[in-house]
């Protein structure tokens, strides 16, 4: 499918869209004018599509430095009269939390949607936090779509709701909704508004304590109004397959419930909630009064389950409530048809036929993700390791950060020792430097450095830390799909934009040892790392080389392709390339001969410098 169709598709057309693509169409159908984000899986494709379409659509789009900034720019836009949309992965909302909380107090003039893409089972994240709880801390309405069609439809609904009660709206998806593809029926796109106008109203826009105490009260009043809407809205629906067994569900979990109920002819009554905070008390109370037992099916925390128990207690409704708190369903990982089926089976009286499946006892190889062939990070790790070896340093601590380079945790490098969050490697490195006498080498990527590394660096310099920070500048935000980073001369709309120099930034902060190397020149890089490791205080080496996926694409365009091979008569099978360099293009064949797979080889040629026998040469 051509991405342009997400913008140009007409009313009544249908498209086979990813949940994330449907969010873009939904925003456009909702008349969005202003969009911001920091890339994070599983939300990244929303930005990828806006990046391609924003200019044509007449929408402002930016990759902000981090999620907090993204919320701030969109909050300002919504207050100035433009419908705004900001999206991020679940942990991004932690970064944005401070400003996010205040947007609820201040409220908005035009619609504002904040989308959080949660990641049950942690396919690409460091935790499994359930951001539905954030709606409750902040006091903002919460929407939970189940599939791409509903993602699209709830975007428009969300903008209207946000404007009706003057609050930002939180939309929670999960990996399985964001990365699910389904048929989406289109509606008309509402053209965006060019510019808004900010009308000054400090009593409503500046939460000094005197204003905040009033705003808190107003916020609670808005939530009462929102609850009435949640009770009556069409987006909360009942699917009635009879009987006195009820199921209350939301988001992606609904899909498993429907499939299991329909395929097994379970006589159940399903209340599917899409507007889930404020929790629609009256609607749920009425539903509970029609059933004798109810199962709550939700991913991850027992959020709705506790709401239901509160209603049951408050109104003394004679109904048995099952869910995570009764161990009927797990409080961990994403659900599946099998998990939902087992949960229903556990409630007495509901027997479902067991399905047989095949098993094997053979041992399968472990296949973890790995740095690509040609990845400059591998060269950086190799050079740093060699420098450490040369200086005979022991017990070096490697605080790491979030990006492809976190894969440095894999053998043989094993250079990822401690990780908390985006930008944390500099703060934790500083902590280790004061708390121990060990040598510290912190690794951080270019995009992550700007995201949240800068405050840590100011802290490190000011508090006189002793550590080496390696900024792995691969000229992009690689892991989420190569979105532009502030160190590149291009922005999210594809316009030429000022390139923020990492070198000048860190020099400005006062770092005395700052050097830039190209990790592809291993010997030179190793020399600089040695020098930096000897430096007392904060030293920074910017290891700069474009991501292999960028250089691959450029070479493909220019039709220049070169690969390497092993001259078997020179090779002594020392295995340095296989066991210490460990590029995925290398493999061991018959009689322990080493080969390079020409299909995987990226032609970077760094292995030529690694081979002690000089046995690697250009394939002719």
């Amino acid at each position, binding site marked *: 499918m051509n991405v342009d169709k997400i913008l140009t598709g007409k009313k009544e057309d249908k498209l086979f869209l990813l949940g994330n693509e449907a969010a873009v169409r939904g925003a456009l159908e909702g008349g969005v004018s202003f969009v911001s984000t920091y890339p994070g899986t599983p939300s990244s494709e929303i930005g990828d599509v806006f990046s391609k379409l924003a200019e044509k659509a007449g929408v402002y789009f930016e990759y902000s430095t981090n999620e907090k900034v993204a919320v701030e720019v969109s909050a300002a836009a919504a207050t100035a009269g433009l419908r705004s949309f900001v999206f991020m992965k679940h942990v991004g909302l932690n970064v944005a939390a401070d400003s996010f909380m205040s947007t609820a107090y201040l409220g908005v003039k035009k619609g504002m949607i904040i989308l959080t893409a949660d990641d049950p089972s942690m396919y690409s994240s460091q935790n499994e936090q359930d951001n539905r709880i954030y709606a409750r801390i902040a006091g903002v309405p919460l929407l939970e779509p189940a599939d791409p069609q509903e993602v699209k439809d709830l975007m428009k609904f969300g903008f209207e709701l946000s404007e009706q009660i003057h609050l930002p709206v939180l939309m929670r998806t999960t990996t399985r909704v964001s990365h699910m*593809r389904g048929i989406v029926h289109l509606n008309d796109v509402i053209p965006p508004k060019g510019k808004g106008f900010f009308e000054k109203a400090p009593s409503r826009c500046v939460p000094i304590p005197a204003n905040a105490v009033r705003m808190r009260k107003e916020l609670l009043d808005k939530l009462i109004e929102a609850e009435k809407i949640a009770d009556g809205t069409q987006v909360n629906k009942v699917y009635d397959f009879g009987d006195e067994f009820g199921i209350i569900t939301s988001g992606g979990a609904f899909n498993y419930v429907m499939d299991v109920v329909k395929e097994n002819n379970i006589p159940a009554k399903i209340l599917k909630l899409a507007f889930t905070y404020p929790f629609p008390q009256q609607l749920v109370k009425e539903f509970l009064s029609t059933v004798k037992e109810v199962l709550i099916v939700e991913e991850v925390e027992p959020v709705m389950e506790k709401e239901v128990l509160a209603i049951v207690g408050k109104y003394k409704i004679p109904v048995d409530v099952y869910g995570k708190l009764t161990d009927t369903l797990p409080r961990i990982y994403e659900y599946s048809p099998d998990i939902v089926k087992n949960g229903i089976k556990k409630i007495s009286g509901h027997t479902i036929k067991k399905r047989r499946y095949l098993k094997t006892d053979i041992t399968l190889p472990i296949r973890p993700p790995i740095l690509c062939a040609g990845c400059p990070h591998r060269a950086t790790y190799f050079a740093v390791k060699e420098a450490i070896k040369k200086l005979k340093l022991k017990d070096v601590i490697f605080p790491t950060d979030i990006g492809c380079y976190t894969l440095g945790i894999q053998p043989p490098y094993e250079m990822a020792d401690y990780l908390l969050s985006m930008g944390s490697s500099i703060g934790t490195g500083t902590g280790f430097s004061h708390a121990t006498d060990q040598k510290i080498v912190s690794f951080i990527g270019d995009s992550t450095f700007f995201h949240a590394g800068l405050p840590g660096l100011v802290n490190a310099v000011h508090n006189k830390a002793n550590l080496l920070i390696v900024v792995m500048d691969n000229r992009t935000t690689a892991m989420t799909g190569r979105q532009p980073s502030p160190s590149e001369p291009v922005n999210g709309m594809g316009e030429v934009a000022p390139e923020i120099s990492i070198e000048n930034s860190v020099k400005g902060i006062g770092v005395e040892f700052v050097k830039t190397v190209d990790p592809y020149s291993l010997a030179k890089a190793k020399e600089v790392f040695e020098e930096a490791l000897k430096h007392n205080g904060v030293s920074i080496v910017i290891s700069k080389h474009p991501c292999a996926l960028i250089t691959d694409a450029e070479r493909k365009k220019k039709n220049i392709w070169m690969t390497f091979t092993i001259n078997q008569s020179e090779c002594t099978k020392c295995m340095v390339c296989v066991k210490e360099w460990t590029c995925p293009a290398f493999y061991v064949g018959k009689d322990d001969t080493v080969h390079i797979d020409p299909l995987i080889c990226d032609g970077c040629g760094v292995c030529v410098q690694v081979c002690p026998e000089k046995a690697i040469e250009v394939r002719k």
Partner: protein
Amino acid sequence: MKAYKIHLAGVGGQGTIKVSSIIGEAAMKKGINVVMSELHGMAQRGGVVTTEVKIGDAHSPVIENGDADLIIGFEPAEILRSIKKASGKTFVIMNSARIVPFTVSLGMSTYLDNPSLIKEAIKKFSHLYIIDAEKLAKRAGNIMSLNMVLLGSAVAMPGFPLEREEIIQSMKESLPGKTIGINLKAFDLGFERIKNM
């Protein structure tokens, strides 16, 4: 229509998502409901990749254990990793060409030789079709067309709910013009190989 459920198992970079979305687009064009799940992000860096497609009445894009109608296996070890999606009724296409992960050369794990893997697959699956998709892709003109070989073989499977022409139309709409010749040839080679079995 009762959903027809396809599970695709492979390694990052093999093109499983493309195959799934071509099938999905074709189903939508035909007026049949379709849902699909795919995973992005870190797993793509040479890790295990699975995608699932359900054509017909279905809400969730995830297949229950033992409920796949068809498994398209891009890599022998990955087919066996996905074995619990299969029952005795499941049709299985197995590309016999292996991709050995780096953990094997580092001695962290082992990869059974091909005959043992194939023996295990023959023992377990009642409807197994083994093809060397890599060889057929090379014959078509580019090894990167391996996924289209497997798409062709899937369409030739008994019970596959979409017609050959419908899939070809969908391929033409979603693949770049300059590669379409090779890709169609790869598709045909995969299709014919199964038909001739």
